[in-house]
């Protein structure tokens, strides 16, 4: 029977790992806006490639923590 206790504990630990992943996603802002990304995904990058070859400098997209 002890093996079941072990099993339960390990499954809870795995679940906790997922919970932590969820909390991390929340605090990093993944759920701040759930509508715009759905639109953004439809945009093609056709022109972007062109623009990148034209522009002189490329900036990193967004700094990690500024707020």
């Amino acid at each position, binding site marked *: *029977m002890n093996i*079941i*206790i072990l099993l*339960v504990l390990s499954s*809870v630990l795995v679940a906790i790992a997922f919970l932590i992943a969820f909390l991390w996603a929340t605090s990093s802002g993944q759920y701040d*806006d759930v509508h*715009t990304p759905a639109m953004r995904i439809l945009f093609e990058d056709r022109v972007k490639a062109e623009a990148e070859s034209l522009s002189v400098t490329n900036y990193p997209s*967004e700094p990690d923590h*500024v707020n």
Partner: protein
Amino acid sequence: MDSLGRMTKLACAHCGEPCDTGSALGQPKTIYFDGKPFCCTGCRTVYEILAQHDLCEYYQRDTDAGISMRKRPLREDEYAVLDDAATERRLLAFSSATLNRIIWTVPSLHCVSCVWLLERLDRLDAGVLASTVDIMRRTVTVDYDPQRTTLRQVAETMASIGYSPLLRLEDLTGESPAMKRKTSRGMYARIGIAGFAAGNTMMMYIAEYFAGSAGVERPLMFAFRVLSIALSVPVLVYCASPWWIGARAALKGRRINLDVPVALGIAVLFARSVFDIVTGHGSGYLDSFNGLIFFLLIGRLFQQKAFDALSFDRTYRSFFPLSVRIQRGEVTAVVPIEQLKIGDILSVRNAEVVPCDSILASEIGYIDYSFVTGESVPVECTKDEMVYSGGKVMGRAVRLIAARNVSHSELAAMWDRSSERKNAAGDRTTRYLELSDKFGQWFTAVALLIAAAGAAVWLPDWPKAFSIFTAVLIIACPCALTLAAPITLGSAMGRLGRFGIYLKNMGVLLDLDRISSIVFDKTGTLTAAEHDIAFYGRALEDREWHAILRIAHESTHPVSRAIAGEHDSFLLEADHVQEVIGKGISGHAAGHSIAIGSSEFIAAHCDAEISESQLGNSVAAAVAIDGEYAGVFTFRPAVREGVREMISKLREDYRIQLISGDSERDRPLLEPVFGIDHLRFNCRPDDKIERIMEAREGGDAVLMVGDGLNDAGAMGEADVAIAVTDDTATLVPACDVIMNAASITKLPALLRYARSMKHMIWTSLVFSIFYNALGLTLAIIGELSPLVAAILMPVSSLTVIAISVGGARRLSRRLA
């Protein structure tokens, strides 16, 4: 009527609006560029900018792409105040030597195309590093390099393509979008943790439910129970904190709201479970506990989403610009409004709002007070006359001498009065909360009574009495009841938003259901906000038309402006132009000598006697061509499409009235719609308030439909106020509902919807009361086993959620 009735139904290639609207003259207004038609130069300019930067994909993203530039002409120093370092610092969300971040609110954001274009701002302004759109909150977060561009440039770039960022005083003081984000993140975290705990405790409990407590070995059972407690503690402490806080605040204020019985229920549930487990009495109800909080949090999420959708509560300060142009000596400087001092000379241009009560220093000025009084025809002011804040300057720019400080002005006083009135009458927006508070008190009392009575029956047997007492409190927790109203109304609010109807809070829907009388304000509500101009007279030739428009264009008088429209690309030459301020204008163009002005002015230019009386008082200006009387221009306000049908439909069920600040001018227009007895003109704001008070004293619940601040007092007095606006960006105080002008005909459907939502809530209440009664019976006879609770509680919550969300969605289809 006119010789140039070209009614081409061309759609503007930028904004999609028909190219020939805006004036009933049918003047040739369509502009061609790049082989495409445009309704105005503003739209053409935007197209030009986009074409230059290879951004025309914008038009393919969404059929709704393109914001009409006609209503919102750009002013060159609208954003000049952003050059002020102090203002800039207060607006920025983050700032460093190489990166500044600003979160703009952009009211005109609405579709996929908007997102596409605004996230490509870096192509229009090389200094922009990144821009991110949040379409629900209508914000754009822009990161830019302060060495390569400025805040003002960013704002102007956005404005140049039709997305003017909102720049108001409240941005400097109010809650930042970043703060709102934090609270919603906390909500998701809570739901995540509660859901996690609910799922896992349920697994542990299921073993016992199936095998029976004898079927599980003792050490295993012990491990399960300890784990369940461990999982539930964070739920109790963190996830349930909104109810702890709510209940504590209520008890501190010596009142009881709906949070109290909920808090009591979950506290007892947890305590009883831990007690059972520790004493070895049983397994407790921890699975029900976690599930309950999970569902309760979902209800909260609905509530919060509804709050987030649109923030209404803006003060009169929102109406004022952030900055004013001040003349000091020879230089004109743009300064933040709080630096304005009495005695300063301001220069206020066309379509700008007078920021404080001032004295006119120019010879003449036209002020549109429709904001304050409801009268839509501009008032003519002469030198040294007092000009009041909230008025909008029309036509010619004026110079003003500030006579009072911003916060001491009339408009501020008016606002304060209306909000005072509201508080005195008991802020109606909280009536829904009050109702639920009352319900909470009643509920707590009854639950405690039943629990005590149930316990008393078993009294000599103390353990049994304790167990009954707690079981009743557990099952009596008004979980489903707290879910019913917020979820129904919250999802209803969300659905209504899609039809251009925005509610201030959820309680409004319940208030709408009680309405028995509807009062309309005219201007901008039933008629279009801008006057159409029509010409009555002899048939004119094209050349004569062009000449009239060309001359009218020279004048800054509002009537001339309306005649000329926005058409400003005439190639015609005009000479000998002479304007007699306040009288009329004359000049030569296209080989004709034209005079436009008052009847006396025209009489001086030709021999004809003009009898104004036969045309009524709707005459705006008379016209003479080559010394001969040609005809008159009249205001021709048009009733919005569908309004007639709407009113006749509403008259079947409600008492309808129209109260207008305007003169009797439009009586003939509106009489057939409303009937003779229900029209009142020339009403001052105070008269409007009185009318509504009268109706309320007569026992009616009054719905006021108006267009904004000029009705603030009346709207505050009514039971429910609906503001109708062409553009949800303009600020609307003292109202409970904002409707797009285009949706005004949906009013009957909205009222019907409100009624059906009330029925929905009742239905779910009946269901939850049924479940509660079932649970109570079981609790009293001592049969509320953990298994029964584990089934009964989630089932009742799920039923309520299903009924509420499903009903709100299904019924909203009738609105379309």
